[in-house]
């Protein structure tokens, strides 16, 4: 199921503006990798290049390679739609489809990729995905109610259930807890810990305690100044980044002497 990601010399452009420069990183399968760094340093932009979601913005393009178990996501003839069904994404703000029931939200992606499902298969996917997102017990009696009626934390876990229902190889999370209260955040963090047994998880976070709690490895991104491209400064085991970083900039950032 889960696959490793190897990025080689990736530049990201918005039009002529170089947003992220020269990122090379190797992310192991079945691990949690956190991207940290100040706002505007390109970590979210970089995350989006891992499933080609940056292409939603007109003029965005990349140079370099992103290999998913050796397959280049940017190779000629690779359909971004297919890439996204292998690399799922969870967003900053919970975004269940408001017009769909909880059940239909979970099945939304499955119906796209797999076409039709028998009723019992669909029920199985719904149950296993919601269980996988630690949400089953809370919603099993109201699967036909709208997903927008859930609390923020539940909505975010519903979005995670929706993402894992597609059976992706990788799950990208773009500040998944920044709109949640501490208790919901804890629930999502517990979930991330469980998810890494089956998936490769990459998470962008502004919360350094969160990075320390959930990730195996941490990448620190920084930007030299406004208008300059973001760069990967340091990438190492999370304990190393937080306790014994090689770079001065990393140490300043994780110890709070920065920004």
């Amino acid at each position, binding site marked *: 199921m889960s696959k490793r990601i190897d990025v080689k010399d990736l530049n990201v452009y918005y039009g002529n503006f170089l947003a992220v420069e020269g990122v090379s990183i190797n992310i192991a399968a079945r691990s949690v990798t956190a991207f940290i760094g100040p706002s505007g340093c390109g970590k979210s932009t970089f995350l989006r290049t891992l499933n080609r979601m940056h292409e939603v913005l*007109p003029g965005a393009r990349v140079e370099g390679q992103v290999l998913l178990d050796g397959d280049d996501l940017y190779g000629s003839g690779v359909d971004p739609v297919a890439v*996204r069904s292998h690399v799922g994404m969870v967003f900053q*703000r919970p975004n269940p489809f408001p*017009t*769909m029931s909880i059940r239909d939200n979970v099945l*939304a992606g499955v119906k796209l990729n797999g076409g039709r499902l028998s009723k019992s298969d669909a029920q199985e996917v719904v149950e296993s995905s919601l269980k996988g997102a630690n949400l089953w017990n809370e919603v099993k009696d109201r699967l036909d109610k709208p997903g*927008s009626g859930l609390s923020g934390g539940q909505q975010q876990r519903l*979005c995670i259930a929706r993402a894992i229902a597609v059976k992706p190889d990788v799950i990208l999370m773009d500040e998944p807890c920044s709109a949640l209260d501490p208790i919901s955040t804890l629930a999502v963090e517990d979930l991330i810990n469980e998810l890494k047994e089956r998936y490769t998880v990459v998470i962008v976070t502004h919360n350094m305690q969160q990075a320390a709690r959930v990730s195996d490895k941490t990448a620190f991104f920084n930007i030299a100044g406004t208008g300059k491209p973001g760069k990967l400064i340091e990438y190492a085991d999370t304990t190393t980044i937080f306790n014994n970083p090689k770079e001065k900039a990393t140490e300043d950032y994780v110890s709070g002497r920065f920004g």
Partner: protein
Amino acid sequence: MTRTVHETARATKGRDLTATETKTPESPGRLRALSSRQGAAGDKVFSGAALAAGAIILVVLVAVAVFLVVQAMPALLAPQSQIANGEGFWPYIFPLVVGTIIAAAIALLIATPISIGVALFISHYAPRRLSQILGYIIDLLAAIPSVIFGAWGISFLAPALVPGYTWLSSALGWIPIFAGPPSATGKTLLTASIVLAVMVIPIITSVCREIFLQTPKLHEEAALALGATRWEMIRMAVLPFARPGIISAVMLGLGRALGETMAVALVLSSGPLIASLLQSGNQTIAAEIALNFPEASGLSLNTLIAAGLVLFIVTLAVNLLARWVISRHKEFSGAN
């Protein structure tokens, strides 16, 4: 109608708020100081203005309704042998109602898919430059007076459609609505409906475009991130979000199609109600009123106004139906 109620409700709500703010008994000096700020006066003025605006709409609506009812009464109460050359009011109005509804329905059937398609193209497919230009053109189309559409329909569209009608009646003539012989001038209810469709397309398109553009990026990205193609994203995120708006847009178009007078009066060679859309015949209420109003007096004038009342009721009923359809799905509208 419903909008009026909304507006007055909002206005009264605003008034309640200011009322409770000034009434709070325990509010010590600081709170009182807050409520007597300059802003409080502006708030009162604004809520008053909003209330007045809402009230004006209601007053106008009631005034029109009262006028229609009062003026229509003589025609409804008079001995039926005196109405419409002895025909009686209901036998007179029934074919007109049917003609009106058929013409509007065909117009919407043609216009709705085209409008949604054009709006989607502008909002989600066309490059930005092209979509801006197209947007302008659509708005321009909406500004063309109906008499121009009528003139175009009568002098260009009707003759151009005649060969098509001839073919339709020979190929599908066994279906009553396509029964021949087709009109030699092309001045039929179908032509009128097509002209109506062309007239309502810009209205429906520009409302739909606005709504499609308001689809939250969040939901579009959610669909794309699941591996949806652009069309799947539109079906999953854009159309469900826009559904109430599309219905409102179609209702706006329907309002225009039902009430459109000039274009139909010019294009349609009217006559008694017939099933075939390819022969001259049929008539709509609005065109009937416009054509006969200049020479009407006394009871025949009352009859025409009664016809107007019927049109008013039909429009109102259709709008209420649309509101009901929208409210049925409130729970899933995303408003909560």
